[in-house]
């Protein structure tokens, strides 16, 4: 039976775990199944968690392993680029960013999985490069490289890339039609 503190830490990371799962799978329903399985697996393996290390990174690792294992079993990676995020909220205070949240999410689904997860882990979830590398079981340099390529690709998809010239039509129009 895990100590109460373990449970508290676990519960505190639930929303982050779910945010990661949705970002990874691109589907809230797939994500919720992943979160549930990860939660149960974490619970029954509580003794494998090393106190003092990042609970978030540990949970992300568990969830990611389940996801990739499911993918290998043949469950298709869901890339429902339009129906995914049930609630569409405005970008909070992000008017000056010029990137619409929904456009961004659609673009995100066009990234290769390995780039998407690296970007989410490092750029949004608050994990360090080192923790992200550990979650993805690659070298730190590989994470950095993936993040870099992810951003370049997003800039391209969102027409933020100055080197792509001043094309008026968003690239998503080309890449996005599935």
């Amino acid at each position, binding site marked *: 039976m895990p100590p109460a503190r373990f*449970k508290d830490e676990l519960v505190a990371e639930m929303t982050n775990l779910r945010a990661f799962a949705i*970002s990874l799978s691109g589907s809230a329903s797939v994500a919720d199944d992943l979160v549930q399985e990860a939660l149960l697996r974490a619970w029954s393996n509580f003794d494998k968690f090393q106190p003092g290390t990042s609970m978030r990174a540990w949970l992300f690792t568990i969830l990611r392993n389940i996801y990739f294992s499911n993918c290998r079993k043949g469950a298709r990676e869901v890339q429902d680029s339009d129906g995914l995020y049930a609630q569409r909220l405005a970008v909070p205070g992000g008017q000056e960013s010029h990137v619409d949240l929904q456009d961004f999410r659609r673009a995100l689904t066009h990234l290769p999985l390995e780039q998407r997860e690296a970007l989410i882990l490092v750029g949004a979830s608050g994990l360090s490069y080192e923790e992200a590398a550990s979650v993805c079981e690659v070298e730190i340099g590989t994470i950095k490289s993936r993040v870099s390529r992810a951003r370049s690709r997003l800039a391209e998809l969102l027409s933020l890339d100055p080197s792509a010239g001043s094309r008026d039509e968003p690239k998503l129009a080309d890449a996005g039609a599935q």
Partner: protein
Amino acid sequence: MEKAKATDAEGAVDARVDVNAPGDAGLDAKAMEAIGKALRAHYDDLVRAPLPDRFHELIARLGGEDEAAPQGGANASS
């Protein structure tokens, strides 16, 4: 899923990569900033979303009934 082959060539350039700082990959500062903001907005929006009820129920079950009622939900599931 591993396509790490391509990374070695680029690895050398990456020491200065900071996801929240402009400059790498030839992107200009505005683009970097816009992406960073949108990325955080995307993620924070998800984190702020309320947890579905199933998780509240699951969390309540964990620990609570583990010993008393051997429902096993926590351990039996693969």
